[in-house]
């Protein structure tokens, strides 16, 4: 073989020496961390209740379900899709789990109930995914229809009534603690770690980014685009289902309207955490941080006793500031 000539890239800048940065640990495109730290600091200074164990425990419980749903949403967003059905899936899986344990007496039913609820979430997600991947329908429409259908099914199953009381064994899932930390928080951390690992280190994870970057190029490179898409929607549904089970367990009720409006919050968490709705940008940890930031704003508002109307405005402004700062930061980094 001929010796290829070396190509020299002209230009004054040599590649910078590789120093380990936070970005390496968290993956490219994590934002929100500075904002989070700032917010937490401000709250710690402004109130004497923020940094108490009870409040942090409360905050963790409040955020966990949103974060789990947001992480599922993130997967879909990474493929340049969107999943509007997650809020309704939360309701659906919640009442399915509640209905199963409600009618049960045996303890094993809790496991069955959870599995059935998760399955329901995954099936709704997989159907969304099939319509998007195979029939090439716009994700927005498919999942908007899914939103209506899943909510309608939830109301039908329950006749519009709340399913309760639920047995203590079921309520213990969300209510219990392990090693002194609420189960909800553990579950959130496990989900975040698992998805973060899968995205950063597995072949499937790279495929997800590839599909979101350019589906056609990915296809030509041999990426199984359709299975990847279906898997992503199915997992989003599965995690929304998990969120639903946890919510039902936390509330001790299968409430048919629960989860309403969660879809926008989940998407917002992803975008605040640095995801792009055009795909291929974003990380699981970013989505988690995004959910925590939104949770913190709500928690802080109550702790400070802010008028709810003003709080609504303040949260809007803070989201703008958070994302705006992030944007400036990124631009400065790009120019440096």
């Amino acid at each position: 073989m001929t010796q290829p000539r070396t190509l020299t890239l002209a230009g004054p800048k040599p590649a910078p020496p590789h120093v380990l940065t936070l970005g390496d640990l968290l993956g490219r495109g994590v934002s929100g961390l500075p904002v989070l730290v700032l917010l937490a600091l401000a709250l710690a200074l402004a109130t004497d209740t923020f940094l108490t164990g009870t409040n942090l425990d409360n905050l963790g419980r409040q955020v966990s379900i949103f974060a789990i749903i947001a992480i599922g949403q993130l997967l879909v967003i990474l493929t340049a899709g969107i999943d509007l059905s997650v809020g309704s899936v939360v309701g659906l899986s919640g009442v399915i789990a509640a209905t199963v344990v409600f009618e049960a007496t045996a303890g094993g039913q809790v496991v069955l109930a959870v599995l059935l609820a998760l399955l329901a979430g995954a099936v709704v997600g997989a159907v969304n995914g099939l319509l998007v991947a195979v029939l090439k329908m716009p994700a927005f429409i498919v999942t908007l229809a899914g939103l209506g259908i899943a909510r309608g099914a939830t109301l039908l199953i329950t006749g519009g009534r709340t399913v309760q009381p639920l047995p203590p064994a079921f309520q213990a899932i969300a209510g219990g603690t392990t090693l002194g930390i609420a189960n909800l928080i553990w579950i959130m951390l496990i989900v975040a770690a698992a998805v973060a690992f899968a995205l950063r280190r597995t072949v499937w994870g790279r495929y997800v980014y590839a599909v979101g970057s350019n589906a056609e190029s990915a296809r030509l490179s041999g990426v199984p685009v359709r299975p990847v898409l279906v898997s992503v929607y199915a997992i989003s549904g599965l995690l929304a289902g998990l969120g639903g089970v946890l919510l039902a367990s936390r509330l001790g009720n299968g409430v048919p309207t629960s989860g309403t409006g969660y879809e926008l919050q989940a998407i917002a968490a992803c975008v605040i955490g640095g995801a792009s709705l055009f795909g291929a940008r974003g990380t699981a940890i970013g989505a988690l941080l995004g959910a925590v930031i939104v949770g913190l704003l709500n928690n802080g508002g109550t702790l400070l006793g802010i008028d709810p109307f003003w709080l609504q405005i303040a949260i809007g402004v803070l989201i703008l500031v958070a994302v705006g700062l992030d944007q400036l930061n990124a631009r400065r980094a790009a120019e440096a």
Partner: protein
Amino acid sequence: MSPVVSLTSVRKTYGPVVALDGVDLEVLPGEVHCLAGENGAGKSTLIKVLTGAVARDGGGYAVHGRDMGPRPTPAQVRGAGVGVVYQELSLLPELSVMDNLLMGRLPHRFGVVSLGRQRAAARELLDRVGLRAVPLDAAVGGLGTATRQLVEIARVVGSGTDLVVLDEPTTALSEREAAALTDLVRGLRDAGTAVLYVTHRLEEMFAIGDRVTVLRDGRHVTTRPLEGLDEPGLIAAMVGREITQLYPGTRREPGPVRLEVRGLHPVGFPAPVDLAVRQREIVGLAGLLGAGRSELLHALFGAAPVQAGSVLVDGAAVPLRSPRTSMRHGIGLLTEDRTESGLLPELSIRENVTLPTLPRAARAGVISSRAQQSRAETAVAGLRLRHGGWDDPITSLSGGNQQKALLGRWLGTGAKVLLLDEPTKGVDVGAKSDLYRIIADFAEQGLAVVVVSSYLPELIGLCDRIVVLRERTVAGELAAADATEHRILELASPRREETPQ
């Protein structure tokens, strides 16, 4: 010797457009088989059929004598040993270089990517194309065009294929990089790999090609060894007519200064740049990959930030505010990367061609369809644009024809100063000679023209003066009469630290 691939009587239509009509092709192991033809002749379509990117309407397709069935998928074709570098790059911009290089075949254990093996494999692939300085973790979208092109080539060449298909791989490369690529292709051939090579640079075909297949209007014209064929003969086969003179040749008498650049200091440049271009003058900008030619053009078009300096057209200062302002002052810029900063893919050919001049086809903001149509027709007059209908999306054009449409966009503005960044990228010989003549005609009418090209014969043949950039500074200037490829490259090459001998 049995062919690696054989296509027989392949047919492909896009709606009313017949892109391929009964084309045969056989590529043998260890040969470099060139595919030649005018823009829109069907070369890229043939390649897409070959790789399974589009389904053919009729005809047979076999790899190593094994029938591939009517609708092979890209994965099947790749599995059979056929790898492609597409004309329109198919990289994943948000992903890292190393992910791009190995996408679809990432080394893994139980689904978990083995980063060490991936790094090693990626390094090896880059080494093969001589791309050593690129960080493996850099996002591909942040790299320069040429670097991206090389990454794409590295990806395909390294994947252990029996047939490597290269669709115009050198259009974005400078002479030197192109030469490195040619070496690479020879190496592949010598190792027994078959290469199907598409290019509009004839001398490249003669340099490395063994056989050539010529297409015209979607039909097979001839397949024959390149030995014993000369350029005019090949051109005649491709174009169906004689092209006696590629470059315009006649020299014009330059008039007063039209474009004056005073102390322009684009952000990122070590020093300000001065440049003056007279009426009726064509000035070339030469330099290696990343020498700052495109950045300079963007800066003086008001499209990139500058630290200081001024630009004057006919003595009047042009505020460096936005491309819109510069355009109003009579400057036009044909960009280098048409997918990224040229085409409007969802819009029609007509809209794409007339976008800068829309206000002139309108009265009180309302467009006159007739005025717009006539503007579109005037703009591409003489470009031999090969297209279906004016309402078709621009993406239905072949690569070269897209380039012509974009050139037409600026020719139609009646600009006083034309900045052309790689204007003949992907344009066939016939059309190239047309383009050269058109550029020369425009200069003749008093325009000042700046041409960036990595194809040195073109710069030498077309320009009156050549300014050479090196590492974002002006390294020197050559009059056309004194310019040789050697002298240009000498100026363009990076200076090593002076070591006392």
